[in-house]
């Protein structure tokens, strides 16, 4: 028991690691502020393309979504970070993470928007058209607001996944929360810094996870 406390809940070590970990937290927040809006916008683009009247365009969008959903994000990240230099491009860790996350999270958000748009009945489109709204106006003012409401729990839950996913940026040495904690761990030979980082993730995400459970139940009921 003593050993466990020493190894995982060592307050002295946590205190020493705190400044480093807080700077990591700042980086994680910056990262989230970059990749979440990028993913939301990219996903919407994917979803709108997949509504195209041209079958080939529709299929290309769905194929793109499925392609990037079937590659683990870490593989994509390492491919971009370690592979592109061979082609003469040297992305910084931040740029590599942004590109990898854009491709990965847009495809997930895209799939969610798509399901949402499909859940809005054809009658809504027809009714909007009959009032003189153009296609893009119908989408923006009639269909999307309802679509987003229908898939809100999925959007929120995917956003939690994206925040959790930012931890893989540590693999390409972007000094975010997990990277800083792991640095502190390797210097102190003690896991308490990682426990501290885990606690920070929990404080950030636990309320949202609770909220998702509520939202999902309310809609299921």
């Amino acid at each position, binding site marked *: 028991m003593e050993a466990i406390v020493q190894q*995982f809940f060592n307050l002295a070590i946590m205190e020493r690691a705190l400044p480093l970990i807080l700077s990591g937290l700042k980086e994680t927040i910056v990262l989230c502020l970059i990749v979440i809006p990028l993913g939301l916008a990219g996903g919407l683009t994917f979803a709108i393309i997949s509504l195209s009247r041209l079958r080939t365009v529709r299929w290309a969008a769905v194929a793109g979504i499925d392609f990037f959903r*079937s590659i683990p994000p870490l593989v994509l990240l390492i491919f971009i970070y370690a*592979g592109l230099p*061979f082609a003469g491009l040297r992305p910084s860790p931040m740029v590599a993470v942004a590109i990898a996350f854009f491709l990965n999270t847009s495809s997930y958000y895209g799939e969610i928007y798509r399901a949402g748009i499909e859940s809005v009945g054809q009658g809504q489109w027809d009714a909007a058209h009959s009032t003189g709204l153009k296609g893009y106006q119908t989408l923006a003012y009639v269909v999307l607001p309802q679509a987003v409401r229908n898939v809100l729990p999925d959007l929120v839950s995917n956003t939690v996944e994206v925040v959790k996913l930012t931890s893989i940026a540590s693999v390409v040495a972007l000094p975010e929360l*997990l990277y800083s*904690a792991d640095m502190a761990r390797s210097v102190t030979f003690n896991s308490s810094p990682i426990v501290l980082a*885990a606690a920070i*993730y929990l404080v950030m995400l636990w309320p949202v996870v609770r909220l998702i459970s509520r939202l999902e*139940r309310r*809609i299921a009921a």
Partner: protein
Amino acid sequence: MEAWSRFLDTFFNWDVIERYFPAIMKGVGVTIEIAAAVVLTGTLLGLALAIVRAFRLLVLNAVIVIFVDMFRALPPLVLVLLVYFGLPNVGINLPSFVVLWLVLALVLAAFAEEIFWAGILSIPKGQWEAAHSTGLGFLGTLAYVVLPQAIRLTVPPLTNRTIAITKNTALGTVIGVGEILNQATTAQSFSGNATPLMMGAIAYVALFIPVVVLGRFLETRFAWRRI
């Protein structure tokens, strides 16, 4: 034309492909093994937890909810590093693939419990009462009436979640599990060529595209409409 041949030489170099094909295939084998173990143990544990929760014992349910919430809120890579580097210092030494399997199975169990539980809750109370009135006990009702309907509802969300968690086997590379990504990055650094990374990416797509497409099919087949 020269740029094109340089591109081919860098990402689709035939010599490199031939040399490292066995290594990548070994990685594919490891990935499949761990993925199968995770899916099997994770979903079964999740189902077991959901069944325990159906008994509605206050203390036990609180423990389950805390476990589920924690494993849904924590990034899997944090858990992997915590278990891999933390346990040896308290005298528990686990091989890296066991660490990966354990962490991913627990994460999947947490998500699966939540999904199964939502499924059980979605069965109207009348079904329970009707089953009781025919003389079925609690377990009989659960096993023969509630779960068969609940599990049907859980197929699409569970499939998607399982795919997402199975892809996390790539995290194993960080602790040296010899799965696809690990083999690919090792081969890349030995060969000084990006082809192995391309091979790894292709291997993942080949493995997961069928599952992703299957997930899409199940979604329409078992349409779980929440609206």
